[in-house]
């Protein structure tokens, strides 16, 4: 093996084993290419992307970008090969383009790797079956972090780096790699030396561990070997190969061509399309999913870009960031931090301070030991906000393809002129159309806008105004970063929005939109965010505001047949918090705030009623939700009772609490009357008492209460007549507001009752014929007979419409007359 390794230093082919996304590797690759000047560069990647390579030279192509491969018939099946500025593959690609040298991708074609995903669906992530295989391997690679390790713990593939690092006495393979390779760039010495050393180590490893238990690697390497052979036939030995270090020994081997061909025979295949998509550092850093799983893309980018003194430059940048955030960080801090980082590195036996040392130093010197400002450093610098760009000429993203497909299937043509669309959600196709439009709106593709319905309102009806603008295609392309299908992208976007949302109201709105768009997958993330925001929300008012909206969504979700178990649970939790926080929040309020609180009380009351209905039903399906819900109503009533009895609570709220309890039948009339008596007793300031009355009998149905319970009416009457003259003018506006809201008929009846005087009591006896309608013990024949003509008319039994008309007119004028 040693001769072979030495061959890397002499003539070609030069096999440059790298760590994917390793800045040190990237620098070494550049140096090696400069030294070797190969006539062709082969890079680990899907060969279908060869036609896309020239795009990398265009000025508006800016990494991080990713090669995206997807199955033509099934855009959801896709794989990504992310490339950052500091990726060795990218460096090799740019070098080849700058020097007019052909570059080629030599990995197994995406057509095969995507098809392979279909035969072995990854249970962990059904949305991206191909990704686990190709993207993970290409991005993390055998020489990098291995995404597959996390995804399939059953797969006991050896981690070559961990073995090497362990042998060298490191517990963390990443740190070992950084110390041994990344921090030791080719400084003046032999540009090929690091590659030779690495190849030797990998060769030893592969001797000990064989293929590492990965059959797929053997197939890929067979393909790479064949490609390498083809290249050598063209140009002789002036070939450079940039691939994961793990593959180098396998490429060095020279098995029979026939054997390699045999390995590649009969592989499953799908039609695959490739394109460039913009990528972000944040996505590079994301461990799972499409991310390459590198922790510190920003740091790596810095290491790659910094011409010298990386630690000093880095800590200066950290200081700059902290200064922007108004922390006092002087150059003296930077000096001390650099000293500390250097000494720490020495103490830890590292050749140069790494990210851990600089972070520890920044924490101790610049951040007063606190992790809070450090989180900012991590977010802005260590991960970084870099956003890639691809030229407009790059082929369309699969999201557009998926959208085309959906548009055809749902018979919704993108048209430039305005069009109105009526949807009846009870029909399947309309429901799907609605979901598509809602999803696109979530993605910022405002093709359709909800419009006011002309036909009628109802939860099963929606009206949209459609208009396809050319720039929407750009929006679709931008939305491509979120996923390859509309539903996957919408889910991804909603989850990201939920994580970024600040206010509780934003998240509740998002939950509603998720339900409308039928995004059950994102809903759980949104629910988590909602529960978290609710837990930390200190303003009960906002919680009380969020609850009705949430319960509405819950009912809406039910209409659409969405599983709303999680939603119900969160809503119940929200209700709990409202219950606890409401009594203290009601104390000592100004009149305006008290009115506001009374409205909230009503809203929460309604919401609790609905919620208790919902959570009680699916007892079998969602046990915890049901358990939470069963005591919801009693607990709420307990809160109302507390409110009604607490003196510090303003009159409106107290009165309203009594009223709500009374309406629910949770408080006897006697008790209500007692509380009213207390509230209206002479010691209470008239203002308070009037507020109490407003809370108690204000709003719909309050008048009927007074009409039907004369005891309450007499209490009000008694209090009103007892109000001192000078106070009367103060309470008059409140009272007027309370009573003016009643229906005319109710007001008239109340007026009559008051004029008649409070001495009569309901049910005093059949003798009192002038009493309240419907309250006598016996039947009032005279009045009952009066209904007969109308009834006959309605039933079509009577031929005398005039008499009936006259009757109705009478009653109308009677009611209206008193109303004014």
């Amino acid at each position, binding site marked *: 093996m040693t001769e072979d390794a030495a061959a890397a230093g002499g003539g070609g082919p030069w096999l440059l084993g790298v760590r994917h996304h390793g800045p040190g590797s990237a620098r070494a690759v550049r140096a090696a290419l400069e030294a070797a000047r190969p006539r062709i560069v082969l890079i680990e990647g899907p060969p279908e992307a060869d036609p896309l390579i020239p795009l990398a030279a265009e000025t508006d192509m800016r990494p991080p970008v990713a090669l995206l491969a997807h199955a033509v018939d099934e855009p959801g099946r896709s794989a990504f090969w992310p490339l950052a500025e500091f990726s060795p593959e990218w460096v090799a690609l740019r070098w080849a383009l700058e020097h007019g040298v052909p570059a080629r991708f030599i990995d197994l074609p995406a057509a095969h790797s995507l098809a392979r995903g279909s035969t072995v669906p990854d249970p962990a992530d059904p949305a991206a079956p191909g990704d686990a295989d190709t993207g993970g391997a290409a991005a993390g690679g055998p020489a990098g972090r291995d995404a597959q390790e996390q995804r399939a713990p059953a797969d006991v593939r050896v981690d070559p780096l961990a073995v090497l690092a362990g042998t060298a006495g490191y517990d963390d393979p990443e740190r070992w790699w950084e110390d041994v390779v990344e921090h030791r760039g080719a400084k003046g010495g032999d540009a090929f030396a690091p590659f030779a050393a690495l190849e030797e180590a990998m060769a030893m490893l592969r001797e000990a561990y064989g293929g590492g238990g990965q059959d797929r690697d053997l197939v890929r390497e067979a393909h790479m070997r064949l490609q390498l052979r083809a290249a050598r036939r063209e140009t002789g030995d002036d070939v450079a190969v940039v691939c994961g270090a793990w593959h180098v020994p396998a490429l060095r081997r020279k098995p029979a061509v026939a054997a390699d061909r045999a390995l590649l025979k009969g592989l499953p295949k799908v039609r695959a399309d490739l394109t460039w998509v913009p990528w972000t550092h944040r996505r590079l850093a994301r461990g799972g999913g499409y991310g390459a799983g590198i922790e510190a893309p920003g740091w790596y980018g810095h290491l790659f870009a910094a011409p010298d003194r990386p630690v000093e430059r880095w800590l200066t940048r950290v200081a700059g960031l902290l200064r922007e955030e108004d922390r006092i960080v002087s150059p003296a801090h930077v000096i001390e931090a650099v*000293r*500390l980082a250097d*000494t*720490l590195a020495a103490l830890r036996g590292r050749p140069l301070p790494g990210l851990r040392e600089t972070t520890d130093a920044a*924490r101790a*010197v610049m951040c*007063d030991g606190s992790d809070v400002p450090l989180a900012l450093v991590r977010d802005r610098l260590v991960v970084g906000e870099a956003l890639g760009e691809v030229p407009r000429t790059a082929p369309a993203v699969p999201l557009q393809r998926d959208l085309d497909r959906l548009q055809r299937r749902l018979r919704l043509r993108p048209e430039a002129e305005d069009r109105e669309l009526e949807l009846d959600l009870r029909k399947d196709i309309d429901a799907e159309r609605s979901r598509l439009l809602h999803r696109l709106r979530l993605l910022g593709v405002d093709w359709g806008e909800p419009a006011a319905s002309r036909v009628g309102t109802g939860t099963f009806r929606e009206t949209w105004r459609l208009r396809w603008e050319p720039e929407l295609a750009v929006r679709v392309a931008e939305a491509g970063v979120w996923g390859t299908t509309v539903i996957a992208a919408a889910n991804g976007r909603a989850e990201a929005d939920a994580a970024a949302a600040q206010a509780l109201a934003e998240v509740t709105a998002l939950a509603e939109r998720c339900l409308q768009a039928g995004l059950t997958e994102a809903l759980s993330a949104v629910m988590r965010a909602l529960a978290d925001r609710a*837990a*930390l929300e200190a303003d009960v008012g906002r919680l009380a505001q969020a609850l009705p909206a949430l319960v509405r969504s819950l009912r809406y979700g039910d209409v659409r047949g969405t599983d709303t178990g999680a939603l119900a649970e969160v809503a119940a939790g929200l209700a709990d918090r409202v219950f606890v926080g409401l009594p*203290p929040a009601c104390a000592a309020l100004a009149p305006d705030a008290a009115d506001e609180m009374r409205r909230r009380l009503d809203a929460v009351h309604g919401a609790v009623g609905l919620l208790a209905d919902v959570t009680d039903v699916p007892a079998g399906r969602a046990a915890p939700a049901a358990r939470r819900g069963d005591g919801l109503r009693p607990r709420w009533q307990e809160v109302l009772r507390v409110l009604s009895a607490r003196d510090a609570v303003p009159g409106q709220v107290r009165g309203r609490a009594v009223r709500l309890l009374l309406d629910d039948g949770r408080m006897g009339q006697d008790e209500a009357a007692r509380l009213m008596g207390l509230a209206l007793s002479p010691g209470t300031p008239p203002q308070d008492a009037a507020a109490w009355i407003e809370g108690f009998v204000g709003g719909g149905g309050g008048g009927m209460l007074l009409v039907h319970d004369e005891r309450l009416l007499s209490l009000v009457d008694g209090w009103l007549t007892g109000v001192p003259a000078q106070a009367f003018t103060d309470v008059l506006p409140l009272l007027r507001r309370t009573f003016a809201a009643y229906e005319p008929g109710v007001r008239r009846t109340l007026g009559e009752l008051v004029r008649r005087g409070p001495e009569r009591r309901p049910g005093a006896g059949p003798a009192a014929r002038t009493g309240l309608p419907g309250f006598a013990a016996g039947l009032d024949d005279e009045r009952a007979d009066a209904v007969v003509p109308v009834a006959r008319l309605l039933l079509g039994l009577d031929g005398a419409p005039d008499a009936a008309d006259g009757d109705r007119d009478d009653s109308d004028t009677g009611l209206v007359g008193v109303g004014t």
Partner: protein
Amino acid sequence: MSVSVETTVAASGGRGPAPTAHALRPHAETAFAHELAALAAQDDRPRPDRWRLSPWAVATYLLGGTLPDGTVITPKYVGPRRIVEVAVTTLATDRALLLLGVPGTAKTWVSEHLAAAVSGDSTLLVQGTAGTPEEAIRYGWNYAQLLARGPSRDALVPSPVMRAMAEGTTARVEELTRIPADVQDTLITILSEKTLPIPELGQEVQAVRGFNLIATANDRDRGVNDLSSALRRRFNTVVLPLPASVESEVDIVSRRVDQIGRSLDLPPVPDGIDEIRRVVTVFRELRDGITADGRTKVKSPSGTLSTAEAISVVTGGLALSAHFGDGVLRPADVAAGVLGAVVRDPASDRVVWQEYLEAVVRERDGWSDFYRACREVGA
């Protein structure tokens, strides 16, 4: 002109190599003398001036390990390795070290062992209180001498900090934030200029290489004297975290409770571990703002809820059950203590606590007794 302070002056400090066998609590350098000796004997790495051990050996002394000759070094600090590494490195770069943390995070313990390992002497200590005078940090006068012979070196009573400067060893300041702000600022000159002027004599004491200072402070305490930014800049700050896992915290609490219980002659209470675990869980969840299963966020109250407070809650509960209960630590015995520790601000903390009770405790299996007990206490 600079002078040196003779070590003999320090006789009153109780230092010196002669360990007193009867001491209630021996100093770190006495108690672990054999470990320090073994480390020093086998330490072949470079040592900074006047350090008894190399930085590597100091880190090993604190974190524990086995030496080449088989000597086992017991771990003095169980926690993130990073903390110790940064602390030792700070001392090696001649920056002062500030250890922050809530009560019960072993600040003093770490500072004592650091001083013992670096300088072989952990007794140069200034205890910070609201009444700490400037003399405790700079120097005082022996007034009999001063009156009899006038100002002279003999009449000077050096502070521990002054002695450390003169000898090139490590001084310690406990509870730095309790010291009045103007007295704190005395340290600025010492830490930045590394010199302590004595204007009365027209002299100064210059710090010898190897001098450094370790201060400890409680960062969550209210009503303390915050460090001025000028002073803060002279320190590298290391925050000592609370125990990382429930298990380790339960372990700390139960061990301490056991010790305290014995010294208070409380009868042993069987099966207290469940209740201890519960108290620790409640404290941790409220402190971290998230439940142990990581599923629900909760608000954090204004109190510190340190491990030390958990210990006192459990001790109080033990006393209650031993004297007034049936000898078994029950939820009702700790409920009042927990409530007292959590609800420091009657208005806001009470809401936090009730939310926690309703949203978390009520739902939890096997916690219904505790829930009821808390409801009774809180009603």
